[in-house]
């Protein structure tokens, strides 16, 4: 009986793999070399809570995967470890104008997952260097029940330019209800802000977004998370980018020269006006007394 069940499950997986490999470019295999990571067992509220405290410094793919490997559950706690390798990101885009824009992502959850009793979708956005998320803005979104939980880890300094800062990661928790499986898509809108970019001769600096990491987690304290998809920093199929204005290196010399010239000229004008005004007053005095 057990072996029959196992055989039918394996067949199901095989079929799913076949379907996924034959599908359109929006669907791709989620992970190649990291298919060992299937589920995580974590004791913190957030998956990334211990990332920066356990001597990880960057957010690049290899370091991040190593971190996930350490959080893996031991096999006896892992009954539903089989995950069909289909992409869940339907749509990804940066909308808006100027220095404050939104990263839109829409995620499709397969009905298969509704049986897993894991009701919280966790999205990890490992943000590229040129942008940041405002923790206070995100908190107010959480208060308005847009997300059930959200936190920013890493470099959250709002003021430094990108070449003086490090990357940050936004962890978003979204409650998943049975209707979400039926309706098909969960949409996320993450407000982001541009940092000051390194100088560029073209006047703009391109910031590229990779794919988010997706997990399906349980809601109780000792969290069990199913790894749905581990994104790559650069995608092969779709290109999501943001062109941010940057200073032009060629301006440096004459901007500095003219700035100081203007300051000196203004200072001299005020100096002359002050001295002349004092002299006028003293002339008036000497006439009258």
């Amino acid at each position, binding site marked *: 009986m057990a072996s029959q069940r196992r055989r039918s499950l394996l067949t199901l997986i095989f079929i799913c793999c076949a379907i996924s490999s034959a599908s359109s470019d929006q669907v791709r295999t989620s992970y190649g070399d990291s298919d060992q990571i299937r589920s995580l067992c974590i004791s913190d509220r957030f998956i990334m809570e211990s990332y920066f405290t356990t001597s990880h410094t960057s957010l690049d793919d290899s370091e991040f995967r190593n971190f996930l490997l350490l959080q893996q559950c031991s096999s006896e706690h892992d009954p539903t470890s089989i995950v069909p390798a289909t992409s869940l990101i339907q749509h990804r885009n940066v909308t808006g104008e*100027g220095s404050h824009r939104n990263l839109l992502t829409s995620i499709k959850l397969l009905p298969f997952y509704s049986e897993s009793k894991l009701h919280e979708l966790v999205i990890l956005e490992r943000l590229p260097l040129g942008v940041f998320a405002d923790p206070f803005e995100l908190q107010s979104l959480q208060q308005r029940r847009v997300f059930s939980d959200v936190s920013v880890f890493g470099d959250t300094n709002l003021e430094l330019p990108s070449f003086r800062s490090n990357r940050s990661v936004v962890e978003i928790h979204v409650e998943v209800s049975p209707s979400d499986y039926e309706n098909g898509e969960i949409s996320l809108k993450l407000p982001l802000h541009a940092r000051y970019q*390194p100088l560029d001769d073209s006047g703009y600096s391109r910031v590229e977004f990779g794919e988010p990491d997706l997990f399906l987690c349980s809601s109780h304290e000792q969290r069990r998370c199913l790894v749905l998809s581990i994104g790559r920093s650069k995608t092969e199929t779709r290109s999501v980018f943001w062109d941010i204005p940057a*200073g032009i290196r060629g301006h440096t010399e004459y901007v500095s020269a003219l700035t100081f010239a203007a300051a*000196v000229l203004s200072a001299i004008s*005020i100096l002359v006006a002050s001295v002349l*005004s004092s*002299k006028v007053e003293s002339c008036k005095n000497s006439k009258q007394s």
Partner: protein
Amino acid sequence: MSRGSENTDDVPPKWMSFRSLLVFSMILRVFLIVYGEWQDAHMEVRYTDVDYIVFSDAASLMASGESPYKRTTYRYSPLLALLLTPNSFFHRSFGKFLFSASDLLVGWFIHTILKERKVPEKICTYSVMVWLFNPFTFTIGTRGNCEPLVCAMILWIIISLMQGNLSQAAFWYGLVVHFRVYPIIYALPIILVLDSKIFRSGQKPPLENWNTGQTKTPTSNTEKKTFLFNLFTALKSLFSRERIMFGLISGGVFLACNAVSFYFYGHEFLHEALLYHLTRTDPRHNFSIYFYHIYLHYEGQFSAVEKLISFLPQFTVQFALVSCFWQDLVFCIFLQTVAFVAFNKVITAQYFVWFYCLLPLILPWSRMKLKWEGLLCIILWIGAQTHWLLWGYMLEFKGLNVFLQLWVAGLLFLAANTFVLVKIIQRHRFSPLFTRYESSSPKHVKKLH
């Protein structure tokens, strides 16, 4: 401003009395605070300033026994967080009421100072209206910005000096420099004006009134010697009793406040509240002419020579203004503040309040008429700001690379500031704050007649 003798033209109509102006201003501010709460709750764009949220968060951290500096971008004295602790247990708008009350207090102080100097009632009222009805003024307090507190302290220092209350002036001066570093630029003119021939502590110093200047009696003119001679005599009697007392008391208060803050909050306090303001080089766009220069050089480091060069124009202007105008103390600190803001590495709109509160105090002595010179100055200054804001909007909200245009707009704003400063200097009727004591020295008696 028109000359006046005591006739009915100088008395404003009843509805424009100072008391009714104050009541009306109070009602306006209460309305704006209540409206602000509504807008915050119902609209995308908040009425409340981001800084107010920073203060409130820091205050609630302090109320729960933690360091207010845990709140990122809180860069003020712990005193401010302490003042705002009622925000957490009373009402979140307590701070706004406190700042608006300070704002009204500034109006009251302006009225007091002008009345002490015997300015006619009508001119007094118009001057007070320049502060109370300035749209920038009533929005800044109601949005939750703490600058009105600083302005109130500065004006109280002036009142204390006018009343001969040296220790009180020194106490508040030490406190205000701890609170906001910029008033340190007033140290030199205040010290200079504490000349023992014109100021003795414990006695109310004789003030030069508005009238004496208008009619130009010889009495007042003997005070105006060449500025070089004034500076020389001032330096000679540098270490008078009053000056030493002022220095010791204000220095003591400043150090005590810093010591207590350091005791509670350690290096975080030093870095965030003090050192940050002294070494701030923000490459992000602002009104200053230096922002693009700083951004273009941010990847490297500034050499010591470069830092010195950028500080020279500021230093020269401050020194020139103090040397020429220290006797007319209020005018001097007004000019110093405008120049300080204009030549600073970072300029944000909230710095303008620092000289808006001093402007009503110098207007009665200005020969500038509103038509057309006054209007020209206002239009040029506001026009240059608006021009900058337009480019700022293109950069921040449309995402266009307009750094060069923004920088040029900054240069134009400096030009407008310089023009307005020069015009105000040219049209000012120089009037020392204090007259000399009718001393026993025969030399002085001779000169008076």
